[in-house]
């Protein structure tokens, strides 16, 4: 059972205060969805949880790992799918995944990487440079990282943005499997309809604070 505890998290950019005391506790098999207006700090919160930003004030723990001094280890247990695809255009799909795996110290056979590319539906493009990929294809390839790394925590920033209806359904199946397997998901979204198919706890981020929504959406 993995457990994530965030308490009294603050963050400011320069002198602009974005987060003013965020608390969140969750454990394996849960999915938290963050709603909120543009600029409410959803992306900032996700980036903080990914340990890309160092903590300014507050605490963040994943199991016994403290983000203040064990960022490297926390990073090895999460995957962050942000607005950026982090893909190198001159590398092929498989090479991009290989780069990702090596930077996490994963020992992956090429076969496993190819299988991941196949699962996300990009088998015909496994050895093509990703430069010419459409936004939807790029999104699928970034999601292949989840299959390669098998993380405990998955952070998603507007994962549905580039996907068509078919893609949304496919992603929801993938995420449902992930939760079933004991993973934790924290996702930022502005669209309650698309996440409706997913068993989740909605939260709202407003004025730098996070509040759980009373009524449960979805099934």
């Amino acid at each position: 059972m993995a457990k994530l505890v965030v308490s009294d998290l603050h963050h400011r950019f320069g002198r602009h205060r974005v987060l003013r005391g965020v608390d969140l506790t969750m454990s394996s098999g849960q999915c938290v969805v963050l709603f909120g207006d543009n600029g409410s700090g959803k992306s900032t919160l996700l980036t903080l949880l990914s340990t890309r930003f160092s903590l300014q004030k507050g605490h963040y723990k994943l199991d016994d790992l403290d983000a203040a001094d064990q960022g490297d280890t926390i990073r090895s247990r999460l995957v962050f799918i942000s607005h950026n695809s982090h893909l190198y255009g001159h590398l092929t799909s498989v090479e991009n995944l290989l780069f990702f795996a090596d930077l996490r110290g994963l020992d992956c056979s090429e076969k496993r990487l190819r299988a991941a590319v196949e699962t996300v539906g990009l088998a015909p493009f496994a050895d093509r440079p990703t430069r010419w990929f459409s936004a939807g294809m790029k999104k699928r390839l970034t999601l292949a990282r989840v299959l390669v790394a098998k993380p405990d925590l998955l952070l998603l920033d507007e994962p549905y943005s580039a996907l068509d209806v078919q893609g949304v359904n496919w992603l929801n199946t993938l995420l449902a499997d992930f939760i079933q397997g004991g993973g934790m998901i924290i996702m930022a979204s502005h669209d309650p309809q698309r996440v409706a198919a997913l068993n989740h706890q909605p939260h709202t981020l407003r004025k730098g604070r996070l509040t759980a929504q009373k009524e449960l959406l979805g099934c």
Partner: protein
Amino acid sequence: MLKAVYRIAWKDVVGDLRRRATLSSMLFFSIAVLVVFQAAFEPDRQAATKLLPGLLWATVLFTSLMGLGRVFQAEEENGAFEGLMLASVPRGIIFLGKWLGNLLLTLLVQAMILPLTLILFNVDAWHLIPHIFGVLILGILGLTGLGVLLAAMTQAARSRETLLALLLLPLVAPLLIAGVQATAGVMVPDGQPGPWIRLLLIFDTVYLALAPWGFGWLVEE
């Protein structure tokens, strides 16, 4: 962790070879610099031999400045730099990967520039190529170490290429002096490159020890 260093360097070198981006522009730029030197000084054979260490190092410096300007440009596409920062290896390892990639590309270019210089300036020093290249390698280790750090420092800055040159040139003054003197030292029979090679080694050690540490500070947000 060594695998991460290798993979980052591999990505940069392979990427460059596939797009022929930095490598070819560095090479052609160096030829342009050599032509400018030739036109400006018009050295005869004897003068060219005497000028060669200085010409060589000035060319090395200008071309590597060009390559350094692009080290982190490759990480801007698709926000790849964020991806690097999400890696579960320490920041210093990421620095070493970026440094190794730049080092290999720069050495590749210099390996082509050296014979080119000898041809264009009509200097008969072919038997000395291993010695001269050895000195070049010693200098380029520290030059790229400091250079990649400064490239990371100016990555988010306005008019960063100019700033990079402004920061790098004064700091590498000792490297340039030692490099030129050491090269001149290995080119004459009774030359004494010893102390200068030692200075190059000091420079390399200091910067390769400091740079990964400094990089950690620069990328922390």
